[in-house]
């Protein structure tokens, strides 16, 4: 098992997230379209690839990242293009021959930016073309369409085109999901670094996604995290005592594989520099320190809130983050209490929380009543450099 920092984790490097993967398959099997939610770096894309790499029987899986799409047409174009790719075609050659033949019959020269040119010269847009292909699937295999960074797409369309177009895309998706013929042949899994709910609420379109089954991605369970660290360190031939592992986990607190791997990676460098074949507590402290030092850009995060928020809003924000850094989390009661201390009304409070979430400071996933820092490294940095 390699230490993977930043990239999607696949194959033997993927640490089993049984709960999430199990929940996803259960929902798929029950016919639900899914919204996968978690902040950045938690592992959504890796989980999606797990689904892609190990599909259950009777399912074909398609993964597409649409984060750069900034128009409706581009979104559908990207989706359509994925169908044409050899990698996907190889997976359906025997499983969904009809779909395969239909895709293969498309003349690439007839593809333009706006759609497919038919024999009669008319152009069918990619949305319609995509729909037709799915309708024509004649196998009992079902297609799972995993759309990564869908919320980013919506946001891009809002920024570059029009809110109306963004709403239209959401409606098109909902229409497909509500279409029995389509849903019998395919279903969607949406995921993204930014929250879809947050983005659609800004254009009053929450109702267009209220049919989605929300599946949260959780941190690792404590014992599972211990096993994870043991596997990691064994793969890099470094010994580590269980107590040391517990020390790491207690320091990090929010047990996301990315952050665990970050600290193990830093520890590996220290072990290499000191020419030892083990990791101990001193090295962990040094590794965390190095990780914090390598992220001295966190000062810009602190400076940012000073710029965005003034007077009582700033004081509220700072105290909120200080509290989370020392107590690990804060609940909505405490937040309300703090709001009262600084005489902020509900809208002001919500506005601040939304900004902090959007900019990556904190999140309230999976429990919406509890907020914590997105990054345990940021939390450690904040505690060391700001709260104290």
């Amino acid at each position: 098992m390699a230490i993977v920092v930043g990239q999607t984790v696949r194959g033997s490097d993927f640490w089993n997230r049984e709960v999430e993967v199990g929940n996803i398959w259960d929902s798929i099997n029950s016919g639900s379209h899914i919204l996968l939610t978690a902040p950045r770096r938690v592992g959504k894309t890796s989980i999606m690839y797990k689904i892609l790499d190990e599909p259950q029987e009777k399912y074909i899986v398609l993964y597409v990242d649409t984060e750069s799409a900034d128009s409706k047409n581009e979104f559908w174009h990207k989706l359509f293009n994925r169908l044409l790719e050899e990698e996907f075609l190889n997976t359906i050659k025997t499983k969904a021959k009809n779909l395969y033949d239909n895709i293969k019959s498309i003349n690439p020269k007839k593809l333009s930016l706006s759609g497919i040119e038919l024999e009669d010269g008319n152009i069918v847009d990619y949305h319609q073309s995509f729909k037709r292909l799915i309708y024509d699937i004649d196998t009992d295999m079902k297609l799972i369409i995993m759309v990564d960074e869908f919320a980013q797409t919506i946001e891009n369309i809002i920024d570059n085109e029009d809110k109306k177009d963004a709403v239209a895309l959401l409606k098109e998706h909902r229409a497909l999901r509500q279409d029995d013929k389509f849903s019998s042949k395919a279903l969607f899994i949406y995921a993204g670094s930014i929250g879809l709910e947050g983005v659609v609420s800004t254009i009053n379109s929450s109702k267009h996604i209220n049919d989605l089954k929300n599946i949260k991605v959780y941190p690792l369970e404590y014992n599972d995290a211990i096993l994870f660290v043991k596997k990691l360190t064994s793969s890099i031939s470094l010994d580590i005592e269980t107590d040391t592992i517990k020390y790491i986990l207690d320091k990090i607190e929010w047990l996301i594989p990315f952050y665990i791997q970050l600290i193990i990676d830093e520890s590996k460098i220290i072990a290499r520099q000191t020419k030892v074949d083990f990791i101990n507590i001193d090295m962990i402290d040094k590794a965390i320190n190095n990780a914090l030092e390598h992220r001295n850009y966190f000062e810009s995060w602190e400076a940012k809130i000073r710029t965005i928020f003034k007077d009582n809003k700033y004081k509220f924000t700072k105290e909120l983050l200080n509290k989370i850094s020392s107590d690990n989390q804060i609940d909505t009661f405490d937040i309300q209490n703090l709001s009262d201390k600084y005489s902020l009304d509900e809208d002001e409070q919500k506005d601040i929380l939304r900004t902090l979430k959007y900019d990556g400071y904190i999140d309230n996933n999976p429990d919406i009543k509890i907020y914590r820092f997105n990054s345990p490294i940021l939390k450690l940095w904040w505690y060391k450099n700001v709260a104290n």
Partner: protein
Amino acid sequence: MLLTNDSLYKYNPDDMSEESFLDRFVVRDDIFNEIFDDINSANYKVQPQHYIIVGQRGQGKTTLLRKIEIEVKKDKKLSKFLLPIKFAEEQYSIRSLSILWEEIAEFLQLNYNDTFPTIYDNMEEHFEDDDYELKVFSYLETAIKKQKKKLILLLDNIDELMGKLKPKEQQQLREILLSTSTFRIVGGSTKMIEQQFDYSKPFYEFFKIVKLSGLNFEDSKKFMLALGNDEQKKRILQVITDTPQRLETLRKLTTGVPRTLVILYEIFLNDDGNAFDDLLKILDEVTPLYKHRMDDLPTNLQAIVHAIAINWDGMLTGEIAKEIRMDSKIVSSQLKQLEKYQIIESISTGKNKIYMIKERFFNIWYLMRNGRKSDRQRVEWLVQFLLAWHNTKELEEKAEKFTKAIKNGDVKSNYAFYMCEALSYAGIGGDLEHNMKDSVKDYLNNIGSSLSSHIGQSDYEIMQQFLELQNDEADKLLIGYSKDSKDMLEFKGLAHYRQNNMEQAKRFLHKTIEKGNNESLVYDTLFKIYFFNDSDMMNAQNIAMKGYKIKASIINTQVMTTMLISEKMFTESYKIFLEFLEFDKYILHYDFIKFYLLRLISFKQYYKSKEFLEIPKYKLKEHFKPLWFALMYFMQDEYPYEYKKMGSELKENVKDIITEIESMRNAI
């Protein structure tokens, strides 16, 4: 002769032959191995880990990228399918993502023509397609997959490339990197890219960051020993073996940056100035970049950078605030900004922090470009290196050798000017300095170089000026000169003393002593400051003792005598008292003589006291008549008539002295 035959090596390892390059790759193998092990063991069916190597200029990023390129090509297993793509250091032409893919295609067609004879030509056919921008990568990837190859993109200055990509292109790139197994990026960057740490940006915590720090002593040793031919290696080995502290000093001053280590080492070894010219060439090359970096900063941040850079050594927040006349709190927050921009770095001293320019090379550039021509600012960095590298004797030898080379016309003009100024500010004084400056001025005039008019005055010339002026003006003139020769330090110390700047006076006088100044005036002046101004008895005595050990003076003999008599070291005190009396001006110090004799008498050293008072040469008996009679009072058993010779007008005076002696005696 330079350490390498190709002086360009120092900033462009790509220009070396492969054999030379590999011979010289002796450090950073742990970092190389970490990346290469991953390349070697990776599963090429899935998306790979992408890297960015972060380090300031000269740290070895380009070297690492080249090493990876070479080793991938040499590896039997990897070379079958993995193709390194390494562009020229500055990828100025790549302004967009589609151009990046085109450049890769072109590179493949040129360098791997057997495998990709028409890859770029095929892509060209699609240039006019309306969906070209969306599909360009797929054209490239399809062609590469068809040949069952993978690519490793070795992109230097990746931060600049990323900066040129529009937000949509960055998103597109991320889409690609998350989904393709066709290529891996290993980039080099002088700073952490914003995209890596901004939560809202696509590449937030995406790349694996490998940070290059300065070389430690062992690695610096290995690195230097790998340079040059056999003869040069021997010379370096000798320096390292005989005087390892020199390498350590050089390493600390350059913060272990390999390129700066090499350049400066060569400047010290070579007297013809070729290495110095290389330095100037490199400074020219980096000027647009560094200038751009400075111009991008707001005015107040520029002022802070200026203050720190001109100072060369680190500065405290308060010192910076004072220098630029800004409030400390404001300066403090702005220093944090500059640290974030990685222009400065700080070292904690407990409560405070010392700030200095992070890239020493940038600091050298700054001084050379912005330091005042007419004084030491411009060459401050070279002065510090000279002082760290050479002791006084070696500096003088270097100056002599340098002057000889000038007279033979063997020196490049820039080197002649800068080295002359630096040697002068490093403390070369006297005739040696004056001759050196004269020779350099003549030389530069003869070759028509305008630098001759910028050569500063020698100490000799300054002293001539000083003598023509009145006191205050002369003092101010001396105080204004930033020369560090032994003589100049003494003069400045005395000038400060006369101007009542005691702290400065002490500073310069101590400095001149450190440089080997043995003038009594220096020690005596320091004694006066400690004794009269500071009431610091301990330091006053210490400095007097030190001064006495070097040379007796009218002041330090008094101090020594006083100390010895207090310790009842009579014989020793007699010797020094007599030395004191030898000075012509002893008569200006009757108070001291009286004190000493009183002390002697209080210790019942009557005979010696009588002996001193009766030395014909000094006529002390006549001058200290009351004291004589007081002595005779105590010696009346032996000299019954002497005391009775006292006139009545002296009675009261003598009585007081006797009382004083008895008090002193009781106090013992």
